[in-house]
């Protein structure tokens, strides 16, 4: 009954076929099976946001999702967003504004911030804080993180991106 189930999905554009136990969550699958360790596992009940990935273009908690639920879906992790250059400017702003701190929350923060910037071109600081409110920074580096997201939004607006 609890036997492995076949699953086929795209991860960062690459087709993946695997047999997984139903209980294996997507975060563990990405980390343990695919060695994509940028996706972090924090609280495992959807509170901290360290496991945030994109599923068919929308951000989700990969710890609150079974790998088998991703059947046929396209998953993008921080490695995908980073390698494609999609968030190079956001990453640079995080470095410049000292928003990295210990870095544990950073992948989730970057994916969540990029999600906001895709939907709202120049969000104000309140909107940035609200959008990131589901992502915890244990170093409490929120001020610098909001600075970095705000700076990126303004730079993109100037460049007309």
């Amino acid at each position: 009954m609890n036997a492995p189930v076949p699953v086929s999905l795209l991860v960062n554009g690459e087709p993946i076929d695997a047999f997984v136990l139903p209980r294996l969550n997507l975060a563990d699958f990405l980390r343990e099976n695919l060695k994509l360790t940028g996706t972090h596992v924090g609280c495992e009940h959807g509170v901290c946001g360290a496991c945030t990935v994109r599923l068919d273009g929308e951000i989700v908690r990969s710890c609150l999702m079974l790998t088998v639920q991703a059947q046929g879906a396209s998953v993008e992790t921080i490695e995908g967003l980073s390698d494609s250059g999609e968030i190079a400017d956001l990453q640079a702003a995080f470095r410049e504004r000292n928003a990295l701190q210990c870095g544990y929350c950073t992948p989730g923060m970057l994916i969540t911030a990029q999600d906001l910037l895709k939907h709202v071109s120049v969000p104000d600081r309140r909107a940035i804080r609200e959008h990131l409110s589901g992502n915890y920074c244990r170093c409490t580096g929120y001020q610098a993180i909001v600075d970095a997201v705000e700076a990126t939004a303004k730079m993109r607006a100037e460049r007309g991106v």
Partner: protein
Amino acid sequence: MKAAAFAYARATSVVNALELLAMHGDKAKVLSGGQSLMPAMNLRLLSPDILVDIGGLAELRGITVRGDVLVVGALTRHVDLLRSPEIALHARLLRDAVAHVAHPAIRNRGTIGGSLAHADPASELPACVVALDATIVVRGSAGGRRIAATEFFRGIYETALLPDELLVAVEVPVAGQGSTFFFQEYARRHGDYAVVGLAARAVVAAGRFSALRLGFFAVGDRPLLAVAAGKLINATVTPALLAEAATALADELDPHEDQQATAAMRRHLAMVLLRRCVAALLARPELGMGVGK
């Protein structure tokens, strides 16, 4: 922590899902968005033998208007409620409420049917469907039935759903002329579960309520449709009358105590929300001042 082992079945249709539920009874759990179910399983509060995944059933997703009823499919996600023009036009209360439900990544997965079937007394949508006088549409192996939202919630995580039944849709009467809504909650942080909340629908004509439904949440084991609202209908709302309704509300509530608030604090906050709600819906800010008992 990780979920205990379970078997998994991906339902191919509603009929197939019902067959699976009939086969496994209360050993099965329905998985839709999973945003409440997965944490409960990860914390080992639940360990079903099998999950019946209805996530792929497109027939259960979507928002349509049929005459004067808005039909919201059970798999409609929170983000869809937030973005839907039909919801904004006919049942704005749902949109206002969803803005308080968790965070974007969770709203992208969580579904209205899942939230209602889960029946957390501190969650927003159960109180909304009670305030909206909605009907919960359910299918079982023996056929379908329709349950008034006020009859659906039975206790903490308890509903009128039987183990072999599936919540398939919610029917909401469309907002008529003069309909207004109010939604507000106290939470420690935006996106957290409410300490106390209020979802309300009213019809206001000539400065009076011709209808007023107050759905309080996180003040009991299920959403509560406040009887105290009756005092304010077809009456000129004076500060004295509102104080009387607030006292009646406090008597009606039997809130629980937890690490977030005492029962007395929950009663107090419910009275504050009542005042704010009435003041906002009647556009009379002076009524929102003070909380007399």
